[in-house]
């Protein structure tokens, strides 16, 4: 039997950013639906990019970290808080939603 308990799993990752984004209106993309997720970008000050994930699919921490790290390598944002509500999105979908959020931020 799995030792993974039921309920949501919360994950937090922080990266040192190089691209300060300053102040901006919060950006929301995606929907909390099956295989999908919601991504909220907010200004946070400082030089970090913090990623907070709440997901219904437990036990995928290392994959989330890899996806977040990969995103940060492409967009080393500084002073941003990224909040994610996830309902079992695949890593590719997560990456696309993060890209969508950044493109709305810069548009």
């Amino acid at each position, binding site marked *: 039997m799995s030792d993974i308990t*039921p*309920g*949501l799993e919360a994950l937090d990752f922080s990266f040192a950013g190089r691209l300060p984004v300053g102040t901006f209106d*919060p950006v*929301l993309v995606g*929907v*909390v*639906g099956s295989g*999908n997720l*919601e991504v*909220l970008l*907010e200004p946070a000050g400082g030089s970090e990019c913090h990623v907070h994930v*709440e*997901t*219904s699919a437990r036990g995928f921490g290392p994959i989330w970290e890899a996806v977040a790290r990969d995103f940060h390598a492409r967009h080393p944002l500084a002073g941003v808080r990224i*909040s994610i*509500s*996830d*309902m079992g999105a695949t890593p590719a979908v997560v990456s696309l939603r993060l890209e969508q959020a950044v493109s709305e931020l810069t548009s």
Partner: protein
Amino acid sequence: MTTSYLECSGRERLKRIVDDGSFHEWLPPAMRIASPHLAQLGVPSSFDDGVAIGRATLAGHEVFVASQEGGFMGGGVGEVHGAKLVGLLRRALRDRPEAVLLLAESGGVRLHEANAGLIAVSEVMRAVLDVRAAGIPVIVLIGGANGCFGGMGLVARCADHVVMSDAGRLSMSGPEVIEASHGVDEFDSRDRALVWRTTGGKHRWLTGDCDALVDDDTTAFRAAAIEGVRHARPVTLERLEAEHALLTARLTVLPEVTDGDDAVALWSALGVADAVRIPDLDVESVRTLRTSQEA
């Protein structure tokens, strides 16, 4: 180029229905006014609990507007979701916008939140009627993939003006609920043609349950919403009695035993010529065929 209303998210619809850039949101996602119940059940919550509310202008008219997100819990009305709708409507009583727009897409009460959701829906209905009594029209737009069912179906029929696309659906009990309680012989929920013949926009238009039938296009919905602002329907005893008469007549118009399809039989009984072709007709053609009048 047209944009499918059905394919849009709740927020995309909002953006396209009201005047460009005019939407000002109350309790936006960053405030995280989310469900207090879902996390306890191991279900992720949404930062806006599945509904965006705020003020905007619609062709220059000051309106209050709410848009439900069908992709989150099927647009189910939970405690916070319902409270946001009620708050919007009560604020309308205070600030008196020219109209309130509800972009409805909901399977009804969010079952995870059971009684809290049921109470929320009853409060929304009461608030809709209060807003109407104050002379402010409440306009409901229905064209999302999840339709407008359960408690939100009731809310829609409490409104002044209902706009539907042919892809939209409006009813109380959803197809699966009817099948589960009365059996597949009574209603086969997998028969999509049957589902649309009995709950879809064309059917609601022909029976007088909606006030405008439009194509699945955000521009068409916007035009119908603008038109709806002029259609306040005062809540009076005469109108209520007229509606009761219409519904009573509908109960008796259908023969006890129908030969073939009940929906086609009803349309025929309502005086629609060659009713069997309705499912194949486009919206523009069906629009001209209505014989019944709204109450």
